[in-house]
């Protein structure tokens, strides 16, 4: 029997993606080839075509390389920090206990708070005479500047990790629920202790959901504009000059739209490489090619 394929059902999503993602991307690439600034944007199509000059400038005479380093470094650190938190939380709330629903909900709150709110809250907490230093001082932790200087990188990591770990938790918890009861029973029969059970039975099964969680959270971190923008303001302190803020400043403060677009295109290309590697490695399909005949 020849199956009918209702491909038309893909149309709404496809059209939207084409109109609002693919076309704007093409426009962005075009802008990256123009010398578009405050003097020319009124008739932006008439801005002088400069070929790859913006790309050249972005690579040689702009903080782009430094920003890429900061962005990937911070996103990777956050991902590494949130991993044990999320997994531990998932393991702890997997089994039933009184009040579990409340705990599970509470864990999700940082994730659902708007970045703008998170940024504002932590900016007030971390200011020099703020609550953070007030609490840390008696504990013997050296106080000091959190929102500028070398520590600002860690401030960004801490705040983003605070807001992002529930995503890892959520996906890990979902992964745990798909595990077969037989696995648990087999582990119990073998008399495995809790750590051995985790180490040799549970963790190997979580590899899929956890690596997915890491990928998604890495992407969320690296593209997060609102949090660093609200937390540190502009101009960015050197140690937290992340990519989205750099491109934003370059276009909306310095009016170098062409240069900014070139930077953004370069950064997307850069992120696309690890993603492509991941996508090739991961088994996305459900298989059963025979059914497609």
């Amino acid at each position: 029997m020849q199956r009918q394929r209702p491909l038309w059902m893909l149309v709404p999503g496809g059209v939207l993606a084409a109109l609002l993602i693919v076309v704007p991307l093409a426009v962005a690439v075009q802008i990256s080839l123009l010398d578009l600034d405050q003097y020319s944007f009124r008739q932006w199509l008439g801005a002088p075509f400069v070929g790859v000059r913006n790309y050249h400038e972005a690579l040689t005479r702009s903080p782009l390389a430094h920003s890429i380093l900061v962005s990937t470094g911070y996103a990777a650190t956050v991902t590494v920090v949130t991993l044990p938190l999320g997994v531990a939380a998932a393991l702890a709330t997997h089994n039933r206990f009184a009040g579990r629903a409340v705990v599970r909900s509470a864990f999700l709150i940082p994730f659902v708070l708007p970045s703008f709110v998170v940024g504002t809250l932590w900016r007030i907490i971390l200011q020099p005479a703020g609550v953070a230093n007030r609490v840390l001082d008696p504990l013997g932790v050296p106080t000091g500047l959190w929102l500028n200087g070398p520590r600002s990188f860690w401030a960004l990591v801490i705040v983003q990790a605070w807001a992002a770990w529930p995503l890892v938790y959520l996906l890990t918890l979902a992964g745990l629920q798909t595990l077969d009861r037989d696995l648990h029973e087999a582990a119990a029969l073998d008399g495995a202790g809790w750590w051995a059970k985790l180490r040799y039975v549970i963790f190997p099964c979580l590899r899929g959901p956890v690596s997915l969680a890491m990928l998604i959270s890495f992407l969320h971190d690296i593209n997060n504009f609102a949090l660093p923008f609200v937390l540190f303001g502009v101009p960015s302190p050197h140690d937290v000059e992340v990519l989205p803020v750099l491109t934003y400043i370059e276009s909306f403060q310095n009016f170098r739209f062409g240069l900014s677009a070139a930077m953004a295109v370069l950064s997307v290309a850069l992120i696309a490489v690890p993603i492509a590697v991941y996508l090739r490695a991961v088994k996305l399909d459900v298989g059963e090619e025979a059914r497609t005949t």
Partner: protein
Amino acid sequence: MTDVLPGRRARRDPEVTQLLPRPLRTLVIAVLLAVVGAPMLYMVLASVNSDLAVARGAVLPTGLHLDNYVRIWSTVSLDRGLVNSVAVAGTVAVVCALVAVCSAYVLVLHGFRGRLAILRGLLALQTIPGTLVLLPVFVLFASASTALGIQVIGTRWALFVTYLTFSLPFSTWVMVTYLRGLPRELDEAARIDGASSWRILTRIITPLSWPGLVVSAIFAFLLGWNDVLFASVLTNPDTRTAAVALQVFGATQEGGAIPVYGQLMAAALVCALPVVVVYLVFQRYLVSGLAAGGVK
């Protein structure tokens, strides 16, 4: 969710699925609750503190300034922002889930050339930063209104279409994993009975996919609720969202104003409340929705 036989459930020994020893479990939960709770608690305390005490970094309120919660409504038009946010994010959530289930149904249950590319694209699309497409999207809307002679920018439609598009990749992807977990026989049995694809989707697949639909909808809702970047250029005062209204509080004006941090925290709490409530209500679905298909 995974087992349906009542007999088996009765035999279940709750201890066998135990993952962490009880003391460790309690410790982990206590530590994480403190990590989550401390800043939240501070936020609540600050929201009833005087503006100046918050600016000074006081932890405990100098008095109970509940008037912060009254004054926020006049400092910025937060009420209108909330209405707009609910209307836009809510609509995006519903429509996004429906469009996502359509796409996912085709992608999971119907093989065709290019399917793999689309699946990969769903993840790849999430790498695109909003700052890159902000200006082009605006140009596009502007030319659309010139070409079609209708107002686009400044309407809720502009926001709706934008958020819908940017939430679709992730939502579709969630639905794909969800539908993958459904027994294929459902589709085949219905097909043999002569049901059309649309009928199968609306009568069989969708009713069985509520948890997945809820997850898709919630993520779409969050995106719409939390965006500041697009909302700040695509809205006017009538259609401004809560996130943009909130931004007014963070504004630094040239010379002269005392910081309104107490009010700022109160307003932030008010803006966060709807999302938190939505989350708490659907929390149950959230985990099972992500789990059902196996997030593998």
